[in-house]
């Protein structure tokens, strides 16, 4: 059994998973099996394993400041489905940084995650979700996160696919932002031939002086569909929202769409947006080529920089 697990870890490290997952507080879920856990005082980690899914809940007790990033790894090595339900509760005045590594290798994989989160008063939740997809994976990703950020709380989410192959990706975030709370959503994804990327951010600025930014950076490098829908509702007094979408197109076969939706029903609220779709910067490409890089190598450097 131990050998099997080592085999899984080796595969994950090859895909790009950082080694610190072995020492930091963490949980590794391969398919519907929890293969490794490192606990941390002040964090309650619970799991329920079913045949067709895993339910995980993570609670940070009030006032606990977690001093190192907590790592989650959701992986699927080879053909199959993965469904993970996640519940994250960050107690009052608590502070946590979560890094979620999603690693998929080979075969036909269908990965779905449903996250419910609550960031209590004065608490902070900072989530980075990084995907590693091997070239030979035929993958469908569906990630849905829904939650509330209570008074003066802070929630930050960065979603990115680090590898060139994105697959069929559908991500949706829905957040209620209460009084004086602050939310920052960002997605960075590059797609190649056959990839389909849909990003939908829905933000309700319900509280007074609530603030949010929804940012997305999508790149279509081949026959790719990429669509961003950013919806922000300015309801609270003096609430402030901004939607920032920029998309890069590098193929005549790509289909790109950027749709900002701004709804305000409060005269003290303000929500702004900017959306741009354009090609890669010619001067950047030419500069790198003048240093001896081929066009494809230059594109790779620029795209990796943008995904950083």
């Amino acid at each position: 059994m131990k050998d099997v697990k080592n085999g899984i870890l080796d595969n994950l490290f090859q895909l790009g998973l950082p080694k610190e997952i072995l020492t930091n507080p963490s949980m590794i879920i391969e398919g519907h099996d929890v293969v490794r856990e490192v606990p941390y005082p002040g964090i309650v980690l619970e799991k329920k394993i079913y045949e067709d899914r895993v339910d995980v809940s993570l609670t940070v007790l009030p006032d606990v400041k977690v001093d190192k990033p907590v790592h989650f790894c959701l992986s699927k090595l080879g053909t199959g489905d993965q469904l993970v339900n996640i519940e994250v509760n960050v107690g009052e005045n608590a502070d946590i940084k979560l890094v979620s590594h999603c690693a998929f290798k080979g075969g036909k994989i269908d990965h779905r995650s449903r996250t419910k989160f609550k960031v209590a008063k004065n608490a902070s939740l900072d989530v980075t979700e990084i995907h590693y997809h091997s070239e030979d994976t035929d993958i469908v990703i569906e990630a849905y996160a829904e939650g509330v950020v209570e008074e003066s709380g802070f929630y930050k989410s960065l979603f990115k696919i680090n590898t060139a192959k994105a697959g069929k990706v559908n991500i949706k975030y829905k957040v209620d932002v209460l009084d004086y709370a602050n939310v920052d959503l960002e997605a960075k994804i590059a797609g190649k031939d056959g990839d389909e990327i849909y990003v939908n951010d829905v933000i309700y600025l319900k509280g007074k002086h609530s603030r949010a930014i929804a940012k997305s950076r999508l790149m279509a490098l081949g026959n790719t569909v990429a669509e961003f829908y950013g919806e922000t509702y300015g309801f609270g007094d003096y609430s402030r929202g901004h939607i920032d979408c920029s998309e890069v197109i590098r193929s005549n076969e790509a289909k790109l769409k950027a749709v900002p939706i701004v709804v305000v029903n409060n005269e003290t609220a303000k929500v702004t947006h900017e959306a741009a779709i354009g090609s890669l910067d010619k001067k950047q490409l030419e500069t790198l080529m003048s240093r001896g890089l081929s066009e494809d190598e230059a594109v790779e450097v620029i795209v990796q920089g943008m995904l950083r």
Partner: protein
Amino acid sequence: MEMPVLTLNDVRLKIEGKEILKGVSLNVNKGEIHAILGPNGAGKSTLASILMGINGLSAPTSGEIVLNGDLINGLSIYERARKGLTLAWQEPARFEGLTVEDFLKISGRNNPELNIEKCLLAVGLSPDVYLSRFVDDSLSGGERKRVELASILALKPNFVILDEIDSGIDFTSIEDFQAVLDDMKKDGMTILMITHNEKLLSSADRASLLCNGKIVKTSDPETIKKRFEECKVCEVLDFEQRESHKEEVR
């Protein structure tokens, strides 16, 4: 007998019916610093573009560009780069998510003696501060141009075109910049230097005056500087008109 590494034979360029280069002929010798002077709009940056193949200018309308004996008309930018040619931009590009360290490493990836700290020190930037900085809008114009020069030192090309690399640089003394030129020369680079700076001009071995799309004279820097001063007097006129105008006055 000096050996030219770069030769331009009657290079002409028309863009949308307008002739911008009107028969440029020039020899740049191996290991020399060859300065190009000329008033605004003379065609200096266009010349740099057509040499490097950038801005969609991969070949002149007519004429030949010969680098180390090979005709390079029509070659792609990276094919030219792989023949040892590069360009330091008048206004260098900004890159999101790319650090100075990344940029110098990419530039110097085929240089076996690459020492990026040394490259930065040579252009007056402290590696401790600058290696981790991003080559994006957070660098000032002068800093970005120094990084551009450092990347040339990292690349160590055979031939570099410097397009007004001194403009916008606040080198406390221009001697710093002359030292960079010396480093480049010591590294065996041949340099085509587009500049307006008189001190830098004095570092050149030879110079050419580009006026209204033509090289009107190639000589020692001092002679070219004098000729440039005359040329500036009646800048609005076409150079040939100006010559005949002078004849008439005489």
